């Protein structure tokens, strides 16, 4: 509980000042990067992306220096078979949110530049169609504490 409180306090969501959006309009909360074995070159980020603006938002890119490639992925279960696929964009409905979580949508890191550092805060920029950007950051956590999946 104390940990959660610290986490919330640690993540003031800052929206880019480039658009007409103010910081409270788009938020990315409870975010975390999945800890992986030292030799692993891949990981993923999860969290809740909320759109409080009056318009639907189309997430088209996530930028960051953590990995060579950052992609938006989805996961579908078809007849018991898990299928991960890359998507070019995701819609976050107006006054709605999209939760990136294990077995569902996730931000995939391919080709991690360095071994993930648990003490580091990794910076990211979410780019939406129309030039709106959200600057955010996340830390590394071992999977397991989060068991809110279904």
């Amino acid at each position, binding site marked *: 509980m104390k940990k959660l409180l610290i986490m919330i306090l640690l993540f003031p969501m800052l929206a880019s000042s480039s658009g007409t959006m103010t910081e409270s309009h788009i938020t990315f909360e409870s975010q975390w990067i*999945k800890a992986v074995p030292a030799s692993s070159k891949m990981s993923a980020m999860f969290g809740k992306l909320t759109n409080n603006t009056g318009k639907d938002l189309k997430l088209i890119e996530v930028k960051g220096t953590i990995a060579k490639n950052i992609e938006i992925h989805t996961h579908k279960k078809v007849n*018991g*078979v898990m299928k991960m696929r890359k998507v070019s964009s995701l819609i976050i409905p107006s006054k709605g949110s999209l939760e990136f979580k*294990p077995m569902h949508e996730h931000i995939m890191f391919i080709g991690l530049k360095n071994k993930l550092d648990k003490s580091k805060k990794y910076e990211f920029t979410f780019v939406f169609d129309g030039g709106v950007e959200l600057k955010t950051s996340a830390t590394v956590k071992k999977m397991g504490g989060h068991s809110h999946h279904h």
Partner: protein
Amino acid sequence: MKFLLVFICLFISVSCTEEKKPKSRPSTLKVKKFGGEFTLQGSQGDWSLSSTSGKLRVMYFGFTTCPDICPLALTKLNNVLKKLSPEKRAKIQPVFISVDYKRDTPAKVQEYVDFFGKGYVGLTGNKESIEKVVSQYGAYFEFVELKDSALKYTVDHTSRYYLIDQKGNFHKSYTEISKEPNFIVDVETLLKK
């Protein structure tokens, strides 16, 4: 004419009773038996299922670049096994098999499972041996090209835990083990044998 009609009726009644027979005796129907011995590559070389005879084996098919399903599956397994007493836990051998024989090596798979729990065995093999063990256990995987992704390809796969008893007989498979009690109940039952 009358004779023919009687004959037809008789024929129908005979064929009907014959049809009913298998239904009342389903045990006579042949069902493909899943499971069995296999040999794959571990970090120390060849690894056969029979090398851990006497232990209860929990097996899972996945791959190490799997972003969430495999880590989640292994985390869940670890959480379930942690609840057992050390004596009982010592009688269980978790086995993770990477079906991604193109990208994973035995050493990489072992490092991967060590990240999740103690005493796990990580295995992979060549195309033939992986395809064989996957079909033996009724699992499924498929390499899927991802043209627009830096991953180049991914592996579609089933997510199930396979419970194998102390003698090497396949007991049952489970999709969910942490919320449904069946898995741990079966584990406890088999451990008493």
